[in-house]
């Protein structure tokens, strides 16, 4: 078998259903083998689109997403997508072509040291120098990408290796002596944690993306209900706990709800599950959760005590540990008073916005979208204000229905990610909540959607600004709107020219109808909403402040 065939056969054995990618000179043998190989290939219009699509596919399905690009510029175009997946712990395998082994390091045409470039943004990467190593390398890549704390793995394959011949052998069992993720929590630590839970008066569960990765949602719900502890979610955790549940507090942190932040600052016990105390969550670190003892459940030991001091670390898989912890708790804490306090905060500081003006409000559009879908949809987003409104105003109910760039904050992520999600879960309605700035960063994927009938519904909140930066300029830079006003094409005509459907909405009374039409349309839709230009995301914790020090421009 040729190397290129070994690659494809290995991908099939690894369970790959779809590859997102783009051809080029140093992957010609692979594309030649793809020509009559039974695996779905989606030709994106930019390699960055392929990387984000693989990422979106992985988030929506829980499987490993795969993208493929040629050497040099093809590979460097994947870099943002790989970094994005790395920051959000998304399982992905990126395959790149490389110049022939005899040319590596010679500044050959379209050569880049891709394993060097991606070293700090991959969980691991490989340069294959012998075709006999190829299938084992691919098997290891999938194992590494999807186990422990997941992440992207890159495999760089020189073109002569793609052409070389070898026998095919697929390793059924992968064991790497230097890589052994811990899945089961230390029983002693779990016992100690259970004791702390029993003694708590104001417990709070702080749930992150790890809950979704490990499939721990049900276990988490059971724990929360059993100990009657309120639950706040990180950005990455949205959907891990139903937003309509009475114990749910919404997201915490910089644009979190006031009650989630107050609860964090008042809690006497924080049970952190699969979350990493990111700076957007903690605000000013030395003021964070001053009364709380912290139990931290995480599969990655390097996440523990990185930012905040943890009293009881438990390394392992969230689902296993939460179930064990639930069993281990003998006495349930009395939280009636605590929940009353929280209810009072909820009443006093609800999420709100000023309605009534002439201009459309983005929050209103999201409320309407929620009413029409009742949470039964996948919500992808770009980055910035539109993203934060989508966190706050759409009620995320189930895992893997919220797809958004958290750690890296990549504009241009949402649209190709939505495309990947739709490929993975074709039965679900997939929306991309976008701003007029972000959507222009990977707008070329319209062609991919239309050509492959990947019907993604894009809601563009057009305020004529790079809104989140403008908001910071308004609040902290004396309204000097330096290069944040931005022009856009006519999105309606643009969508039409690609063969998609475009519409524009300017009035409140047309929102519902437009959304209904968007959902019903059997095509990719660009629905543009002309919104209040200087609408802000509230509440907000300014950088460097404690998280209960929120500002709220509505008062």
């Amino acid at each position, binding site marked *: 078998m040729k190397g290129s065939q070994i690659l494809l056969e290995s991908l099939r054995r690894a369970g790959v259903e779809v590859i997102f990618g783009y051809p080029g000179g140093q992957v010609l043998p692979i594309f030649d083998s793809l020509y009559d190989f039974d695996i779905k290939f989606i030709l994106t219009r930019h390699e960055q689109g392929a990387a984000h699509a693989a990422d979106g596919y992985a988030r929506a399905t829980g499987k490993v997403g795969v993208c493929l690009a040629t050497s040099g510029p093809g590979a460097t175009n994947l870099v943002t997508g790989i970094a994005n997946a790395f920051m959000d712990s998304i399982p992905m395998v990126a395959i790149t072509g490389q110049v022939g082994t005899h040319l590596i390091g010679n500044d050959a045409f379209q050569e880049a040291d891709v394993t*060097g470039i991606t*070293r700090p943004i991959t969980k691991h990467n490989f340069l294959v120098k012998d075709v006999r190593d190829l299938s084992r390398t691919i098997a290891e890549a999938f194992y590494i990408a999807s186990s422990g704390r997941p992440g992207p793995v890159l495999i760089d394959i020189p073109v002569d290796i793609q052409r070389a011949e070898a026998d095919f052998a697929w390793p059924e069992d992968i064991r790497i*002596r230097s890589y052994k993720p811990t899945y089961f929590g230390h029983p002693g630590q779990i016992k100690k944690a259970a004791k702390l839970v029993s003694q708590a008066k104001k417990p709070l569960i702080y749930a992150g993306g790890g809950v979704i990765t490990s499939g721990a949602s049900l276990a988490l719900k059971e724990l929360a209900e059993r100990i009657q502890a309120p639950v706040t979610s990180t950005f990455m955790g949205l959907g891990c706990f139903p937003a309509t549940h009475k114990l749910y507090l919404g997201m915490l942190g910089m644009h979190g709800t006031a009650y989630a932040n107050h609860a964090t600052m008042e809690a006497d016990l924080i049970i952190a599950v699969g979350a990493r105390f990111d700076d957007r969550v903690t605000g000013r670190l030395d003021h964070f959760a001053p009364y709380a003892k912290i139990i931290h459940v995480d599969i990655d030991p*390097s996440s523990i005590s990185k930012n905040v001091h943890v009293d009881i670390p438990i390394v392992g898989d969230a689902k296993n540990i939460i179930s064990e912890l639930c069993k281990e708790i003998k006495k349930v804490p009395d939280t009636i008073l605590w929940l009353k306090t929280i209810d009072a905060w909820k009443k006093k500081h609800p999420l709100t916005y000023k309605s009534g003006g002439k201009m459309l409000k983005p929050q209103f559009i999201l409320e309407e979208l929620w009413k029409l879908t009742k949470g039964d949809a996948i919500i992808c987003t770009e980055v910035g204000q539109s993203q934060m409104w989508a966190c706050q105003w759409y009620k995320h109910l189930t895992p893997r229905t919220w797809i958004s760039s958290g750690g890296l904050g990549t504009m241009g992520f949402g649209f190709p990610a939505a495309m990947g999600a739709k490929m993975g879960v074709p039965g679900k309605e997939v929306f991309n909540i976008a701003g007029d700035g972000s959507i222009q960063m990977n707008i070329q994927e319209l062609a991919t959607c239309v050509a492959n009938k990947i019907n993604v519904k894009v809601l563009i909140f057009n305020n004529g600004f790079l809104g989140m930066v403008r908001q910071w300029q308004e609040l902290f830079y004396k309204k000097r709107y330096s290069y944040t006003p931005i022009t856009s094409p006519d999105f309606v005509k643009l969508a039409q020219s690609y063969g998609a459907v475009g519409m524009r909405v300017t009035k409140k009374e047309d929102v519902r109808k437009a959304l209904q039409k968007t959902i019903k349309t059997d095509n990719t839709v660009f629905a543009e909403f002309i919104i209040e230009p200087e609408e802000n995301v509230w509440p907000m914790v300014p950088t460097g402040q404690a998280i209960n020090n929120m500002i709220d421009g509505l008062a």
Partner: protein
Amino acid sequence: MRHTISLLVENKFGVLARISGLFSARGYNIASLAVSETLDPTISYMTIVVEAQDEKILEQINKQLNKLVDVITVTDFTKKEHIDRELVLAKINYLPKDKDRLEMIFSKYVGKIIHYTEKIAIIEAVGNGAQIKSLLEELQSFGIVELVRTGKLAISN
């Protein structure tokens, strides 16, 4: 504070770059580094000496080192019983009349003169950090022309 970290790693290309990248990404300089094969040729042993401005950052680096797929074990010797040694080769100015003085010095250290010419001598010495430091101070009186050191090697006891 100076830390001595030892690692058992896969003996493959790219491993050293991954490891050094974790230090350089945080603006940490590696003071010394020694790498060699173990009895098992698929495994290498590394001893890294690094000056930590912030202990928390170093703890993070240690955890990140452990996380690297090619790293088998990480040991921070700083708080552990261990023995460390370094080998030094030095070229010093030397005239035959200095021979007694030089031999006097070497009687206090593990080392010897391994090569003479008319004007210079090449010496080798083995010792821990303090021993090497004091030897080099004494040799300063001759004038050190060139100096190479292996960097620290450490083993637990």
